[in-house]
């Protein structure tokens, strides 16, 4: 067995030292009735055999990069530079634990400090944590935090919030015991969230760009929130957008919860991803998740440690701000390396390319008879209204194969004709040609 170093001779010698007749004797505290005989599973296999079996399974999937691909909806296909994957696979990063011993984990601590800084800069906020599981759980944690900060228990969720995010908040609301008033999806853009805020509102949750790709100025909503003592919670599912858009922090956001997958991380069929979480300095003690802070060592040299841990479960137990124990360490590393490679110029240019591609594609789709583009504004994703049910068209195009986008009906009943389409830097002119042609044919 290639992963197990002990030989039979080792085992015998070790048992002799322990003074036990057999390994079974070491399990003597297990009740007789629970000692399983052989469990019916296949025997061990070599690398080649495992690789063959799993590769066969992988081959039954259509990899995004192998086809014209226009799918977003909270996960985005971007090019990740080769050095990112190389660096995150260094064993010192990959096989290290949470940095509880700062003297021998300065590498992890320093990159997390850099990551926190990058997230704060990108979102326009003052402080960010070392990440949460994903954007949806970060959003639910943010609502819980807003409840703690305001002492109120009713949140208002925009209909433009990603349906998965809304559902995750709903689950938490049901079991923690607070209200989350979700508004219906509003394709026509008439949603008036300010009118729903009252003295009992802890926060308003709004996505930017929203689930249909629309971009809204959040300043009036921030003012309306603050006038009633509520917090504005801004959710970002496509973090590359902040390379082109005014950041939520500049529009009065109190908490930003975001999905960081787009930078550094592959699609991975939905996970692991990386939840970004940023807020104002004055709320820092109410934040969930790990935080890294700067300090000095016994010789006066700059270094980093996990800090403000008294918020967390291992100290506060049932009074912790959250039960969260892990962050998304390695995904965080991928994010921070990719963003370091991009830098100011790279990120803004990447964002500009994404936007321009989407604008091109929107123009081309709008020219197809019967197709209308819903958005007046968007970043790299927008919504089209089709003359036929979108789900059937997506399935038909998948056979060609083209992955055309996500039908809104996959999430919400009653919007059968809406298709959300994304175009990132990975989309080529030929991909757009293929989509336009296929869509024309299937609508004919």
């Amino acid at each position, binding site marked *: 067995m290639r992963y197990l170093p002990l030989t039979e001779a080792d085992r015998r010698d070790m048992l002799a030292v322990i003074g036990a007749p057999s390994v079974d004797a070491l399990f003597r505290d297990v009740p007789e009735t629970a000692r399983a005989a052989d469990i019916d599973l296949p025997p061990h296999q070599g690398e080649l055999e495992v690789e063959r079996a799993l590769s066969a399974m992988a081959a039954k999937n259509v990899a995004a990069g192998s086809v014209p691909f226009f799918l977003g909806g909270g996960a985005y296909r971007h090019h990740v530079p080769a050095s990112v994957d190389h660096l995150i696979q260094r064993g010192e990063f990959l096989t290290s634990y949470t940095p509880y011993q700062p003297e021998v984990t300065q590498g992890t601590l320093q990159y997390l400090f850099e990551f926190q800084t990058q997230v704060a800069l990108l979102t326009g906020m003052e402080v960010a944590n070392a990440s949460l599981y994903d954007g949806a759980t970060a959003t639910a944690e943010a609502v819980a935090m807003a409840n703690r900060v305001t002492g109120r228990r009713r949140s208002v969720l925009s209909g433009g919030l990603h349906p998965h995010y809304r559902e995750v908040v709903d689950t938490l609301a049901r079991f923690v015991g607070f209200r989350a008033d979700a508004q219906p999806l509003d394709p026509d853009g008439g949603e008036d969230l300010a009118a729903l805020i009252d003295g009992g509102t802890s926060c308003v949750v709004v996505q930017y760009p929203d689930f249909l790709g629309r971009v809204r100025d959040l300043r009036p909503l921030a003012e309306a929130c603050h006038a009633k003592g509520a917090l504005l919670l801004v959710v970002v599912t496509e973090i590359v957008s902040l390379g082109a858009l005014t950041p939520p922090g500049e529009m009065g956001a109190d908490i930003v919860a975001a999905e960081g997958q787009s930078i550094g991380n592959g699609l991975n069929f939905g996970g692991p991803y990386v939840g970004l979480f940023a807020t104002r300095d004055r709320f820092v*003690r109410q934040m969930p998740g790990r935080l890294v802070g700067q300090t000095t060592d016994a010789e006066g040299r700059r270094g980093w440690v996990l800090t403000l*841990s*008294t918020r967390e479960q291992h*100290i*506060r137990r049932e*009074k912790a701000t959250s039960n969260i124990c892990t962050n998304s360490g390695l995904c965080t590393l991928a994010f921070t390396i990719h963003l370091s490679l991009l830098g100011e110029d790279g990120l803004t240019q990447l964002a500009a390319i994404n936007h321009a591609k989407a604008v091109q594609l929107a123009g081309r789709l709008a020219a197809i008879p019967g197709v209308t583009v819903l958005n007046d504004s968007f970043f790299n994703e927008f919504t089209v209204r089709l003359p036929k049910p979108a789900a059937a068209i997506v399935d038909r195009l998948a056979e060609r194969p083209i992955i055309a986008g996500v039908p809104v009906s996959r999430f919400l009943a009653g919007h059968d004709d809406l298709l959300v389409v994304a175009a990132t830097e990975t989309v080529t002119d030929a991909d757009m040609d293929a989509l336009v042609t296929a869509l024309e044919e299937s609508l004919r």
Partner: protein
Amino acid sequence: MSAIKFTEDHEWIRVEGDVGTVGITDFAQNQLGDVVFVELPAVGRRVTKGGDAAVVESVKAASEVYAPVTGEVIEINQAIVDEPAKVNAEPMAGAWFFKVRLANPSELDGMMDEAGYAAFVDGQH
């Protein structure tokens, strides 16, 4: 005339008239280690004997400070919020936490005096 009383949770209260000044004991600050954060109740809040009133934190521990008596908080010590190290330096004097107007002075009756608390702490070792 003032009297100082102690709780088993290591708070002290010094009463003058109907106002009690509350802090944590030298033993408590020693157990906590370097204090890094203090959270005090809002002035005007009504606290209940034995209920949560304040929070004091070191790097590795967080502890509730319980109200030794029932009453209304009438003043808080901002100095220890600004400089938590004071709690370690002068727990029994300058680093008081809050002042409370006693609702029921008889609540003090069962509490330990200085000698009683010293014996109680000895018994904890």
